């Protein structure tokens, strides 16, 4: 006797859930091993340099980068620099120390206050926090490149995809290092990598901050949490329009914050715009791959 039709279960496809982070899930072991290979290939095979220079703020991105560098080059060839400014929180310094202690990498602290204030205090006392942040970021990258020259190493970038897409970084500072392992990983994916690599919990659990003012957080500056921003970003970059995301159940205001930031910062993800004059313009006519 066949079952009655009414008794058959109906198995439904899951409804779209804007809270789901499924699209952001990575296999952290696979990613970590791949990034270690990437670092070795780019630095050692590609450029003949086997020493990494990392600016270690004590935040999650630079901590993860330092863990990856220690794996790729060995702690003896990884140099982590703590580069505090006068307003940097002591907590950041102690978190950075936790990382260097755990990994056994070289650690050095260079206070950039005199360097930054040589300009700011002397000539621009009224600079806004945004401008101070940019000056500090550019001072730090100056130090990192100089230390690279001194130590025959390469500065390793620490910027993630979320801040790159949102334009939440200082142009030609955070994005200046020639090698960046995290640049195609959303913030929520960096967290997964951090858990896998064993980054200290205190670093994973604290709110990300540019550390310019007390209580300042990235998410406060941007106006949306990284978790929400990533869920929107990942879909925008998969070809969904902003309107479509609202239709799918995302908050219109939040989609707008992300969309405005993305669409207003394309220039920040490029080299400077050069006036095309000749038919041999670099990267227009004269084309060579980066590893040619």
């Amino acid at each position, binding site marked *: 006797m066949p079952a009655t039709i009414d008794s058959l*279960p109906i198995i439904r*496809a*899951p409804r779209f859930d804007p809270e789901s982070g499924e699209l952001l899930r990575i296999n952290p072991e696979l990613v970590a091993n791949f990034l270690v290979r990437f670092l070795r290939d780019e630095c050692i095979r590609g450029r003949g340099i086997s020493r990494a220079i990392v600016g270690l703020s004590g935040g999650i991105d630079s901590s993860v980068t330092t863990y990856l560098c220690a794996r790729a080059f060995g702690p003896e060839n990884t140099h982590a620099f703590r580069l505090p400014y006068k307003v940097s929180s002591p907590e950041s310094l102690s978190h950075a120390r936790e990382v260097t202690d755990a990994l056994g990498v070289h650690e050095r602290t260079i206070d950039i206050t005199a360097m930054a204030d040589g300009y700011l205090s002397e000539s621009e006392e009224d600079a806004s926090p945004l401008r101070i942040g940019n000056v500090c970021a550019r001072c730090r990258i100056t130090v990192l490149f100089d230390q690279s020259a001194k130590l025959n190493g390469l500065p390793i970038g620490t910027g993630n995809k979320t801040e790159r897409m949102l334009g939440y970084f200082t142009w030609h500072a955070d994005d200046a290092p020639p090698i960046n392992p995290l640049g195609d990983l959303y913030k929520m994916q960096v967290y997964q990598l951090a858990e896998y690599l064993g980054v200290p919990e205190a670093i994973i659990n604290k709110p990300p901050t540019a550390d310019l003012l007390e209580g300042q957080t990235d998410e406060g500056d941007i106006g949306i949490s990284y978790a929400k921003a990533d869920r929107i970003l990942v879909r925008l970059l998969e070809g969904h329009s902003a309107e479509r995301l609202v239709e799918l159940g995302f908050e219109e205001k939040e989609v707008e914050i992300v969309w405005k930031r993305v669409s207003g910062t394309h220039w920040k993800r490029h080299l400077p715009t050069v006036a095309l004059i000749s038919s041999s313009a670099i990267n227009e006519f004269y084309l060579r791959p980066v590893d040619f």
Partner: protein
Amino acid sequence: MKFTAAAVQIAPVKADYAANIERVAEAAVRCSADGADLAVFPETVLSGYFLQGGVAEVAVTAEQAKADLAERLTGKIERPLDVVVGFYERHDGHIYNCAAHISFSPSDAEILHVHRKFFLPTYGVFDEERFVARGRDISAYSTRFGRFAMLICEDTWHSVTATIAALKGAQTIVAVAASPARGFSGESFANLDHYRRLLRAISEEHGLWTINAMLVGFEGGKGFTGGSVIVDPFGKIVVEGPATEEFILSAEIDLAEVARAREKFPMLADLVSVLEDVAREMQEVNEAECPQP
């Protein structure tokens, strides 16, 4: 455009057309009440699959199947419902293994297309060429949910059929099947694993939805696997059910995903741009003195 599709995985009552038409109609009504715009039923659901010469006793015309379903759906559905149903069909003096796409409204019914099985398995446990005639066409046809194509069982196992359907404009492929379980060494039946790979590959290669309904039940010791799935245009299974059980799958089909998939992976557009060369290669193979194998 969006619509809700149901894939109904049920076991037929062997060789009992009257009982099966009742059950299919009842399931169609339930799908409609549940919000479905399309209900897909497995291959040969109106009779069972292994009938040998008995196909002559259960085969009906598509018009007959339409009329029998319409009679049972009239007054029972409140909104239009499309049904794809597999059965042995009488047509122009032949018997075919077919799938018919029939569009029902509360008061009317129209056959949109009948697909007659193109590849008839005649090896191992299968003997279709002996009992049914072969369909000659792979067609895409228009529905109120965009362009569709249907494939039946072994049709799915040849990538060329889905390729033709996609080239003819299909945005959704309905794949119905009756597949007796073989290969018990893995986590699931080997032929069901194979099906999953095929269905996902079809969607992924051509950027289209695949709605699959599989027969279940035993016929003379041969147990049909079931394991129906609905696959999105990226090749991801959006809903699936257990093997061998009876159930109804339900999923919202968003045709905007077809465009998104094809934009991201323009395999079909790439194929269109080289089609002339592909056709020439096929022609050469066809005309070769010793075609393979």
